[in-house]
């Protein structure tokens, strides 16, 4: 598929051209090859899942996308432009936000403040203005608070607005973390196992939020997930990784029937 081509999903959404293209990415840690020559793209408006057994290199892949790791070989293209070596905070400003496998919230701050940190890339008032809480700084606080309150409503976490996040149960912390990533109004949202350690009900809630984010804000989403049922239900296209290599790429139904994928997940009989 070329970059400008679009395609229709079974539920009738139109998916645009590539937002993010990974070309022949190879990532090594010393002698260990974490990712080996992987290429795939993430297209505008789609939900792209990355699956694979433990240690397949999925999280490393997300870390490459948001600039935490720098691949030794290959190119990362964002909106068709090749991305040079950038620091993670510069990449955040380009509109890539993420959540973490192990919750990485700011434990000493309230839910509200945590989500407000997601707005930091949109706040530009100077130090003097902030010190006096005057003019631009005050205006920005109120404007961004409005955006954050919309996200709080959307995620249905109004009652825990002022609770320190350290006191919240696991499922809610995951939701707050999603809120923090959403607050940045990202063009590309990376979710690292958003449903890990959740019960069925919480998984259903989280899936609904992910679908709603994609539907209402049109956010492009790339997610890593182990629950195959969830992936098959919500993802538009799936990349399958195993031992740092790509072994499958396509719609959920295509991937499900792929022999290499079945072998990786179920094991192969060597006879």
């Amino acid at each position, binding site marked *: 598929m070329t970059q400008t081509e679009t395609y229709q999903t079974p539920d009738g959404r139109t998916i645009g051209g590539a937002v993010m293209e990974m070309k022949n990415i190879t990532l090594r840690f010393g002698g260990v090859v974490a990712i080996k020559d992987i290429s795939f793209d993430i297209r505008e408006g789609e939900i792209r899942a990355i699956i694979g057994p433990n240690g397949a290199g999925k999280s490393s892949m997300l870390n490459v996308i*948001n600039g*935490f790791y720098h691949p030794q070989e290959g190119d990362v293209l964002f909106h068709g432009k090749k991305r040079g070596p950038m*620091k*993670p*905070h510069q990449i*955040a*400003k380009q509109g890539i*936000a*993420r959540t*973490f496998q192990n919750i*990485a*919230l*700011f*434990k*000493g*701050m309230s839910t509200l*403040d945590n989500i*407000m*940190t*997601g707005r*930091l*890339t949109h*706040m530009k*008032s100077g*130090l003097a203005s*902030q*010190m*006096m*809480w005057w003019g631009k*700084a*005050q205006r*920005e*606080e*109120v404007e961004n*608070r*409005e955006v954050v*309150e919309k996200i709080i409503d959307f995620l249905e976490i109004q009652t825990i607005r002022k609770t320190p996040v350290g006191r919240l149960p696991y499922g809610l912390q995951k939701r707050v973390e999603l809120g*923090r*990533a959403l607050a*940045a109004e990202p063009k590309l949202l990376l979710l690292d196992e958003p449903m890990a350690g959740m019960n069925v009900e919480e998984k259903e809630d989280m899936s609904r939020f992910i679908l709603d984010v994609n539907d209402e804000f049109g956010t492009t989403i790339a997610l890593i997930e182990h629950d195959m049922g969830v992936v098959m239900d919500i993802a538009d296209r799936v990349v399958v990784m195993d031992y740092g290599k790509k072994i499958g790429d396509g719609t959920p139904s295509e991937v499900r029937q792929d022999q290499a994928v079945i072998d990786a997940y179920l094991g192969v009989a060597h006879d």
Partner: protein
Amino acid sequence: MLYREAGDFKTSYAKDQQTFPILFDRWGYFIMLALAFIVGPMIINDYWLNAVVLPFLIYSIAALGLNILTGYCGQVSLGTGGFMAVGAYASYKLMTSFPDLNIAFVIILSGGVTALVGILFGLPSLRIKGFYLAVATLAAQFFLVWLFNKVPWFYNYSASGQISAPERTIFGYAISGANALPHISYLFCLTFVVILAWGARNLTRGANGRKWMAIRDMDIAAEIIGVNPLKTKLTAFAISSFYIGIAGALLFAVYLGAAEVGEAFGITKSFLVLFMIIIGGLGSIFGSFAGAAFMILMPVLLKNIFVGQMGWPTDLAAHMEFVIVGGLIMVFLILEPHGLAALWRTAKEKLRLWPFPH
């Protein structure tokens, strides 16, 4: 019954974001300010001003500064004494080189000089964290004290190696030197405290404070949501050193009058201010004041009890004072590791429901 927020509705985000969202707190704050500025100078006598109130005000500023760096941004610093020395020596050099410069400007400029030095010594924080950073700042402490001892230019080649503040006036009243009036010094320091505390509160509740706390709580996540760690840490070092520099300049020019660097700004000062923020509460403006009050008041109180009431010899009282203050610090850290500010918060939570806790 008095402390209620029922019926205290907020109709805009701006109102919800103010420093004292509860009406009762707001009034309490303004009444405190009025008392401090108007009633304070009338009722406090010279002994109390010199022994308790002035050091409390000055150390509050230092505690605010260190709390910004350690409590809010999570960068442990043992260099407070050294940075206070920078403020003191900067004010001395400015006062002697520019005799016509107003003392208020001298103090602020000294803070600025200290901020620059703070940025310089903050650079290692980009690579090292925690205990290792503490050791690096300890090096700053010893280096700065050594520098002010060894380079005579800093103390204008005086024979004793001491610096002493020349007389300066503000609105015609002497504020430093031999004829300084304690009440004017009190108002002068109080003005600095109020403005700086207000600024610290605004900085820490806004975007910048969130950056600091994000770096403190989880620096990797902070970087990934778009916080520039270099800029954020250096801002914290700069602002913190600005406050500490002002505290050092005030301590020298307004309170001590004369100082010798090793004695006035040694490592014990660094620990004193660090204890203040740990006992008061890390990451709390109120905690900075509470900690400063505790560490200044306790020794004075104990001395009054032992020497004044019980008639002990002064040397014994002085030793017991160390024992008791040290013991109290330990008991405190075990019972309430989050400091006086956490106690205050709990008390407020309880008061909100009192007398009907259900």
